[in-house]
């Protein structure tokens, strides 16, 4: 007290400022706690899963059958279905999304951009369950009428994958447009000055220059597709199956987790622990993809900033 009055213009200690800052810091730390919580829960339950005498890590990673009823825990069928749907989604979503992005950034007038971008936003804002319904009531009947009802099963990974492609399309288009627009105008002008046409400039100058941003986008989209749940839960079918045929039903990692947890599963059962082990696999895959994507895009920002 005495010291403060001695220096009337000195810095006063303001307790409540410190309290507020600490509170805000703690709320920011909660996000770290969430990550730690996710990692801790997944690892702990997975540890319980793998310490079960029926489960061996090697069988889990290489086994071709997932039948918990008879103690077979090979996760390849689930992984295979997840990859099948994701690859189909990427095969549809990447080219179309990229083309939309090129159209928006290089060709579209301000007016048509003003119409198209909100449409993409609407598409991106539709809940995934609606896409699942779309897969079930539109895409599957469409595929069946094209390829024949005997070839295409009622539940199949192709339908789920295609609709998932539509789901990631707006995300790819928006992020890819950002990446393409970030390429400096000088690069385009230099190409025109050398006699390049618009399309040559786009493909040989702009796209290569935006490549790091684009690959970051594609990785993030892949991560989104791998973690996507409701579309595959509705349209891809129940029951794990190792098949290369996209017209057959096959359950994905996420589809399995939803089906098992949707029923009444009792704690500490092998079923309960198994969804956490699969969750861990899912988390590791998507985490790696997200981190790589982030790394690439931060490199990209350094290039032109």
């Amino acid at each position, binding site marked *: 007290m005495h010291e403060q009055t001695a220096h009337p213009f000195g810095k006063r200690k303001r307790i409540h400022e410190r309290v507020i800052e600490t509170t805000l*810091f703690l709320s920011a730390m909660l996000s770290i706690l969430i990550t730690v919580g996710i990692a801790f829960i997944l690892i702990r339950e997975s540890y319980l899963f793998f310490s079960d005498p029926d489960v061996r890590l090697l069988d889990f990673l290489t086994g071709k059958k997932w039948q918990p009823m008879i103690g077979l825990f090979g996760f390849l069928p689930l992984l295979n279905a997840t990859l099948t749907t994701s690859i189909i989604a990427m095969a549809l979503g990447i080219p179309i999304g990229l083309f939309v992005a090129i159209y928006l950034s290089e060709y579209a007038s301000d007016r048509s951009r003003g119409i198209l971008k909100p449409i993409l936003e609407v598409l991106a804002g539709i809940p995934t369950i609606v896409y699942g319904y779309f897969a079930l009531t539109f895409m599957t009947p469409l595929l069946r009428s094209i390829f024949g009802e005997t070839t295409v099963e009622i539940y199949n990974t192709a339908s789920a994958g295609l609709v998932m492609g539509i789901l990631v399309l707006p995300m790819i288009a928006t992020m890819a447009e950002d990446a393409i627009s970030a390429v400096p105008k000088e690069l385009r002008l230099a190409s025109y000055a050398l006699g390049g046409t618009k399309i040559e400039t786009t493909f040989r100058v702009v796209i290569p220059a935006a490549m790091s941003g684009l690959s970051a986008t594609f990785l993030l989209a892949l991560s*989104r597709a791998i973690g996507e749940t409701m579309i595959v839960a509705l349209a891809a079918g129940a029951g794990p199956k190792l098949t290369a045929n996209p017209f057959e039903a096959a359950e994905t990692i996420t589809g399995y987790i939803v089906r098992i947890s949707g029923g009444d599963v009792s704690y500490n059962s092998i079923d309960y622990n198994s969804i*956490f082990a699969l969750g861990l696999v899912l988390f590791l895959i998507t985490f790696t993809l997200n981190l790589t994507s982030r790394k690439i895009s931060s490199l990209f920002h350094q290039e032109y900033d």
Partner: protein
Amino acid sequence: MQTQSLFGTETDINTLMGKRKRIGLLWKVAFLFSTTLAILFLILLLLTVIDSSFGYVALRNEVEPSSLIAGKKSVKDFSRAELERVAATNLSSGILRRVEYEKPLEQRTGNDLVALLEQYVIKPKVLKTWGLWDSLTHTKAIDEYSRSEEGSYLTFKSWINAEFFLADQSADPLHAGIRTAFLGSLWIILITFLFAFPIGVGSAIYLQEYAQDNRLNRILQLNIFNLSAVPSIIYGLLGLAVFVRAMQSFTSGSMFSSLTDATANGRTILSGGLTLGLLVLPVIIINTQEALKAVPASLRMSSYGVGATKWQTIWHQVLPASGERILTGTILALSRALGETAPLVVIGASTFISVDPTGIFSKFTTLPIQIYQWSARPQGAYRNLAGAAIIALLILLMLMNSTAIYTRDKLAKKKRLES
């Protein structure tokens, strides 16, 4: 005479230029086609949903109205006295007692009695349903089907109607509605907001206004971006292990009172709301940070210049200046939570529940879960119900988003007037 240049003759150059331009045009067509395709997908999606929400239904009555009163084909043709007499004689004693207890037959309106008779005596069963498109174009086939089925008749039904919004989840698709699911969704969103908004905005203020550029804060930022890309189903697993299981006595309310519904086992609105709160937290943080970034540094500097402290500057200058953007970002994040299905299924939202949620310790179901349940059923009529529920969900989302945009515009206008 052709001019010869380094790149060949003029014709060579011209053909090459022509070719290059054609290639350019082809690609432009491809880009335009892709964009059209994206729009087409949106239109198809909406049409599919609308298509299944309206259309013909083939029904068959368990008891024909003509067998109750000879010569009358529909309950609607019954006179008031006939309605009361038929209801009194044909309703089973249990149902009659319950109905009389709610409101005596004599005091009920004619429409009320018709509805009672249809639900408990006539009991129409859905044989087959058609979408709007089929109903308009394949009327002949629909007629033939109806004739081939003994005792069946056709009605054109709008699956989205007043009863659909007011009724609870019924086992009979003709009388099923979304009231319980709708209330569940609202409760969940409320909890999500109360949990994620203060923490999210607080984190964003810390990261944007206080944080130094050091290792810890860079990790914090990277971690938030990572969290925003973690699949939603993982949050479901987190919620299941933490809120439903580990904190069961808290989330089921048994810690506070013994009167709460014990059958919920922690699978309550509180658990669901907190799980979705964790899910949208990174989204709210990122959106709020963007809003704070948009506040010009000069505003902060002038506030410091007149002697305000850091917090005074944030509270009196930065937050009011960015308020509408923060609000918009939050509403957009909440509309994402409103559409989430997977995490709530994982934490074990009830699949069949016809009792309205009464508080945060109630069992619950939400609109997206209801859509999931109905879509997953093989019977046709449930698909129609799912379509109608999707329309309700999309309308709700549209209302939320337009509120966000409206509030933003209004606040921006007010600010312009003040300055």
